[in-house]
């Protein structure tokens, strides 16, 4: 009886598999077509959902089959490594990857490239950057500079007390944005006007907690740099609880739809918008060109960044939130 039951349930489980497989096949081209893989940091972040969308559109247009995989959490190297191996086994022409660990993934990428697969990093460069054939990404230093310059203008000569809500140690993206912000604002690392720096891992709850602690340390903070919009919204919540939300300038990076809406409503003063859909689209196109006998993609391609704000300051080029909302992701 038990055996029959387990057999029945197993059949049910396999049916589920079958359904998943069938549905996928219907949405992509038939077997034997050229395959391209996309490996994102996680499955759930809207940034990567948009990326997948861009890859899917471009793959369909080029008549290619898209395989996707993701890490289980931010920083999950093992799952990405496994995905690379499986995609190479599946016979992909190229792999697009946003590496979770910029150094640790390098040996696996080398193996894939040795097997003749083109590997393109999206959004996040590997360390060293030439471990992949090409990089399609936002210039994160420039993204930081834009909001730094904006903040300088917005402070209008007032003495700044700055909090930086950063990503996490050892992650280049976070470091570049942070450095760019300081550069744009015209100060050096360690400047006394930066009164508080905390890691948030780009998480809203952690961003709120970090801001609460910063306000505890220095109640007169009047400028907040945030690694991304969730962290910015967390900071806003903390400031609002103290009744400080009106007289503090929050700047951020990302350009997600939630973030741009927050710019529109005035919670965030300005944000640097990046374009994940374009990264994936361009990546898939490059693989398609290579698969058709074209040259391997190489080097760095800047996928662009735009400052979004409704309170533009003089001398810093910006677009308004209408533009931001038309081009946002998530």
């Amino acid at each position: 009886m038990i055996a029959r039951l387990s057999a029945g349930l197993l059949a049910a489980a396999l049916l589920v598999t079958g359904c998943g497989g069938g549905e996928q096949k219907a949405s992509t081209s038939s077997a034997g077509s050229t395959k391209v893989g996309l490996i994102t940091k996680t499955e759930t972040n809207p940034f990567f959902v948009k990326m997948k969308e861009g890859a899917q559109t471009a793959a369909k247009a080029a008549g290619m089959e898209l395989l996707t995989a993701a890490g289980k959490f931010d920083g999950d190297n093992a799952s990405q490594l496994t995905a690379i191996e499986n995609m190479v086994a599946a016979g992909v022409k190229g792999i697009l990857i946003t590496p979770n660990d910029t150094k640790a993934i390098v040996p696996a990428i080398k193996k894939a490239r040795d097997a003749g697969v083109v590997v393109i990093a999206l959004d996040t460069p590997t360390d060293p950057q030439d471990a992949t054939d090409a990089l399609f990404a936002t210039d994160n230093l420039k993204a930081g500079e834009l909001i730094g310059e904006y903040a300088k203008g917005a402070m209008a000569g007032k003495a700044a007390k700055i909090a930086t809500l950063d990503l996490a140690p050892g992650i280049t993206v976070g470091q570049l944005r942070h450095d760019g912000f300081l550069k744009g604002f015209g100060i050096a690392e360690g400047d006394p006007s930066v009164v508080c720096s905390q890691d948030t891992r780009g998480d809203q709850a952690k961003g709120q907690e970090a801001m609460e602690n910063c306000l505890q340390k220095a109640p007169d903070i009047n400028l907040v740099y945030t690694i991304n919009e969730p962290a910015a919204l967390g900071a806003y919540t903390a400031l609002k609880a103290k009744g400080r939300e009106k007289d503090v300038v929050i700047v951020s990076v990302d350009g997600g739809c939630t973030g741009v809406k927050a710019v529109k409503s005035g919670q965030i003063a300005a944000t640097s918008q990046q374009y994940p859909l374009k990264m994936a689209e361009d990546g898939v196109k490059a693989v398609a060109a290579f698969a058709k006998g074209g040259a391997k993609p190489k080097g760095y391609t800047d996928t662009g960044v735009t400052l979004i704000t409704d309170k533009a300051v003089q001398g810093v080029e910006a677009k308004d939130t209408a533009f931001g909302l038309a081009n946002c992701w998530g």
Partner: protein
Amino acid sequence: MAVMEATLPRRIITTPTAGPLGALVLACVFFALNSDQFLTGGNFSLIIQQVMVVGTLAIGQTLIILTGGIDLSNGAIMAFGGIVMTKLAVTSGLPPLLAIAAGIAVCAAFGLANGMLVTKISLPPFIVTLGMLNVVFALTHIYSEDQTVTDLPPALTILGQTFKLGGTNVTYGSLLTILLFLFFAYVLGQTAWGRHVYALGNSQEVARLTGIRTQRLTISVYTIAGLVYGLAALLLVSRTGVGDPQAGQTDNLDSITAVVLGGTSLFGGRGLVLGTLIGALIVGVFRNGLQLMGVPSIYQTLITGILVILAVTVDQLSRRRTR
């Protein structure tokens, strides 16, 4: 009469690994029919490489679950062991073999600490290992300063090297993993220590009354599990080629998944370590097969979840029947 009816087919049905083995075979047949890249020696070698780390962790997990305990800290202990061996070898310049030994010893020490807390202060294993998970996770990040350790000496990655087996490249790590499973299958099935582990899991009180020194036995189980996590750390380092402070964050639950899928009861006292190997392979086969078919990886998570619930359902129903 009832005893005489316990013929071979009947015994196969009541063997806890029969269901998992059937599921594994079914899954393999399914993927072989749906992907022409699945049924190759190279692909199977790949699947074994992909499950060896979690599989090895799951050996230790099986030992602990057989005693009626659980270990939430194994992935974290492994990550720490990996950082210790790579950092000692690269940053401190220790001879690689000594660094490896130190890494494994550290893992065994954490296992011992878990065992001591569970027995001497009689804390529930769930809580002890939950606490240890956080302690070791933090130590890993403090000691590594969140930096990935690269440029490892060759001795640390030797298990990632391959040898030819009938035209297929197999890593030494895969071989070590299989040997570990066979070794523990022997130890659990054929030695007094192994039988005592099952007795302890069935009833601690009865085990104690039959003269088994249950505290010492429990401590030995957790320590040996820690030692095995140390070997998993070496396998991890050889597979990724780096010391990774972010490693293993979901491996505690993944190893429990492998144990449960392999037909071992979470209530202790019932199960086979070879079942755990099958459980780990089921996860690996689904992950690989679905990827080859072009199914997004989220479906693998969905199916693993369904299979876990199935496995515990079967365990629960068969318990009710034997009762």
